């Protein structure tokens, strides 16, 4: 059983802050490191795997400093995001070489076992350069597992995998977690994370935005106020109808330039205005809106959620 501890870890590159004052503990089981691209997930994993020093703060594994500590790799298996391997070798040769680099007592059976775990024994004698992306990913995982480490770090492991390979890898990670290993993987896709990870750490713009059980984070995401952009043939009338109803807390009329400012309400579709609506509750607003429109004889042209992108969900979680 191993535990990673990050204590007030920051990392900046010149003027750019990639990781900002992150404190977290990652223990046994599967943890998902979730965040949009550029949130600092890779930087965090690179620091946890000892290939980048924190600008401030400490990264330790079971109390031991990770940076400049070669002995730590006896306990860490790392699956890097980058693709390159020694691709003139065959899968077997490469996994065996990794076992030898660990100076295992029986590298041959360790390599065989690792290739069995990732289900690559059939293709093990082909050169790595001939592998598909999913196969290469599995060879990378085999090299990380070859010394049976208690800790597994995976940087965007699902990238480029087809759905079947994805399910296989999820199953593999889940079983690693159940065996009591500390498994951390990064992803920018919520669905991936919540299918495998018991606990989730959310990173946004270099900050540690939320952590905990995925159900808590899911609830935070669905119970937040929702925003919609709506276009209709009479935005002003619709605005007053919406605000009269309890399902929305704010309505803003945007666009339309002078025409809207002058109060010209009857310009219809071509007037270029739109409504930004802040709904208080997701389910009821979606139910109420068509009824409101119908009652007031307003034709709806467009109803689109304005903030469903992952980034906006994340930025909600980080708070103002």
């Amino acid at each position: 059983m191993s535990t990673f501890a990050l204590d007030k870890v920051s990392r900046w590159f010149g003027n750019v802050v990639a990781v900002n004052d992150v404190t977290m503990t990652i223990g046994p089981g599967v943890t998902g490191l979730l965040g949009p691209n550029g949130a600092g997930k890779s930087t965090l994993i690179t620091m946890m795997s000892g290939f980048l020093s924190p600008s401030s703060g400490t990264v330790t594994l079971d109390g031991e400093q990770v940076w400049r500590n070669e002995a730590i790799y006896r306990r860490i298996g790392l699956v890097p995001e980058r693709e390159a391997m020694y691709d003139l070798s065959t899968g077997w040769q490469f996994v065996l070489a990794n076992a030898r680099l660990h100076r295992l007592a029986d590298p041959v059976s360790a390599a065989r076992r690792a290739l069995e775990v990732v289900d690559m024994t059939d293709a093990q004698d082909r050169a790595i350069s001939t592998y598909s992306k999913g196969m290469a990913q599995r060879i990378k995982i085999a090299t990380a597992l070859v010394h049976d480490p208690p800790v597994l770090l995976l940087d965007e492991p699902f990238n480029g995998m087809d759905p079947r390979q994805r399910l296989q890898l999820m199953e593999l990670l889940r079983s690693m977690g159940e065996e009591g290993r500390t498994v951390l993987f990064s992803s920018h896709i919520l669905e991936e994370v919540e299918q495998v990870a018991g606990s989730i750490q959310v990173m946004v713009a270099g900050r540690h935005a939320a952590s905990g059980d995925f159900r808590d984070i899911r609830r935070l995401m669905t119970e937040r106020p929702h925003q919609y952009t709506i276009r209709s043939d009479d935005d002003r009338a619709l605005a007053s109808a919406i605000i009269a109803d309890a399902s929305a807390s704010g309505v803003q009329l945007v666009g339309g330039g002078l025409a809207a400012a002058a109060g010209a309400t009857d310009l219809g579709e071509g007037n270029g205005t739109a409504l930004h609506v802040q709904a208080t509750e997701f389910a009821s607003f979606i139910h109420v809106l068509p009824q409101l429109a119908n009652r007031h004889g307003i034709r709806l042209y467009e109803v689109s959620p304005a903030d469903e992108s992952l980034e906006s969900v994340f930025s909600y979680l980080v708070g103002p």
Partner: protein
Amino acid sequence: MNATVASLTARSLLGRRRALLLALLPAILLLLCGAARLVVGVEPDLSVGLLGGFALGTLVPLLALIAGTGAIGPEIDDGSIVYLLSKPLSRFRIVVSKLVVAIAVVMVAAAVPTLLAGRLLSGSFGGVAVGYAVGAAVAGMGYCALFLLLGVLTRNAVVVGLVYALIWESLIGGFVPGAQVASIQQWALAITERVIGLSAADLGVSSAVSFGAAVPLLVAVVIGCTWYAGLRLQSLRLTGEE
């Protein structure tokens, strides 16, 4: 020394088309010398010119540049070095293993052909062939250590190495005698001079550096560069693609 690191290095160094490139230069040297032998016969003066100018002056630094930077630079560039570094292995051991492979390549592709070329051109006259072969070997060690360090320090190792070998050693060294003091080629030439012995002066083999200075300088470069490369590898930043 770690055999697995060495074999991975050798495989990527000699794989693909690089092995052909490594064989091309010594082939040119041997062809040139073979042709010279056919046209002018055994000619020690010519052999000193060819061995000093082409073998020691061009072949050795270029091959050491390919082998020294190629032993580590591409792996750092594409990130595959992470598979060596994420192991409980001393970084110095990794560097030494790679250096041994690079030096072995230069021995086979430069020192041995130099010996053969010398024999072709000068027979066994005055130990010219052996002298230049020894010079090529020790120069190869110095260059490999230096270029391997460059491979760790910069992504432009090949360019920096070329600037050193061509501009500093050949061009500036040719005009400014002082610059020759900091020249691996001149240190190796001092050793060649010593091996050839008394006839070196007659043949015009003379180094700007004394034998007594050349040996410690070469040893210092090999050890110093290797040590510093290991140190830098300890704190090599491997940033992701973010």
